[in-house]
């Protein structure tokens, strides 16, 4: 089960990351949960200083940019 968290305060990039992550998760067929973290205090706990951030199972994978669906699928393996 992959816990996917999108860290972001609501900027367009955060929405794009959310969409890509959802698509990647669906395409890869893994069991997943998708959560959007918008509170700054929560985002800082991950040590992320530039949104958006992609966290999978508690590990920070991408900071500050929007990876492609293909790239996210790689990370979900």
């Amino acid at each position, binding site marked *: 089960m992959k816990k996917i968290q999108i860290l972001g305060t609501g900027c367009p990039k955060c929405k794009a990351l959310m969409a890509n992550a959802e698509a990647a998760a669906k395409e890869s067929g893994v069991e997943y949960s998708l959560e959007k973290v918008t509170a*700054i*205090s929560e985002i*800082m*706990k991950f*040590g*992320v200083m*530039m*949104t958006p951030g992609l966290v999978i199972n508690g590990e*920070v994978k991408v900071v500050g940019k929007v990876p492609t669906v293909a790239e996210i699928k790689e990370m979900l393996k």
Partner: protein
Amino acid sequence: MTTSDKQACCSCGADSTAGAPSGTVAAASAGRYILYAVILLAAWYGLYHSLAAIAGWITYSLLHLTRGAHLSSAVEFFIFETPKVLMLLTLVVFGVGIVRSYFSPERTRKLLAGRREFTGNILAALLGVVTPFCSCSAVPLFIGFVTAGIPLGVTFSFLVSAPMVNEIALALLFGLFGWKVAAIYMGTGLLVAIVAGMVIGRLHMEKHVEEWVYQTVVGEAVVGTMTWKQRVRYGLDAVRDIVKKVWLFIALGIAIGAGIHGYVPEGFLASFMGKGAWWSVPLAVLLGVPMYSNAAGIIPIVQALLGKGAALGTVLAFMMSVIGLSLPEAIILRNVLKVRLIVVFFSVVAVGILIVGYLFNVIM
């Protein structure tokens, strides 16, 4: 690895890829990248230096406009400047993107932790130029810096230089006015950042930071290093993002500039934006603060203003205050700073910009 080994590996046929050390494969793809880079740069250079001729040809031969008329002057300016600025922007954003791929807010935070005044302020201002920064990172960055033990003044030096001394501004200044003006902008921008940070540090306004900021728990994100392929991709992404965001502003800015270029008489602006008008610098700064534009839109206007007699100091001050101080930024910072500190921050930077403006009107 000796040449004979290399030849032996190459002649191994099917086994050669399995047997070849990663060194040769990496060297081959690096060589390919460098070849592409050289070819693209040469093409860019050739096209760039033909733009003036192309613009002239389109305006006078293709569109049959009369030479010397206001409209043709404006049109030629527009056709010449728009691709020129866009090409310059592309090149510089890509180059800076590659440089920035070596930096991250996390790394900068580590580099600045525990630094004291002066060296800290200088380093922070310099790092502000190369660390990736956007309005979305202002708040997390502030929290991250402050909780890492980076002094408030040093953090502010970073917050001033990051948005103001940005690659777009430098690229456009370089392309439109030459390296001297770009260097001046960068130098004075860094100076304002360093001094403003030191002044704010001396004021000991830590109590004017929202208390919860100091309470925030900040984790340690482990950010890996990038391969060259990823860096190039990062640079290209940066170009695509920025050009997509600013091309309209550039076109509008150039259109306005073209209008000024074609229709405003020479020296017209000297009366109220020239050196003689002492109040032009404070006015420029005051006008700039509530205005918010990215560097891309404002610079073509700046070029037109300068061409019509506005003094360099006044125009630089205007540009710095438009890009460096903005209402949206103040609103975002309200999340972490109390009003008094925001006011002090903006005032100190505004005064710094004012001094730069006056200095240049006097020197130049």
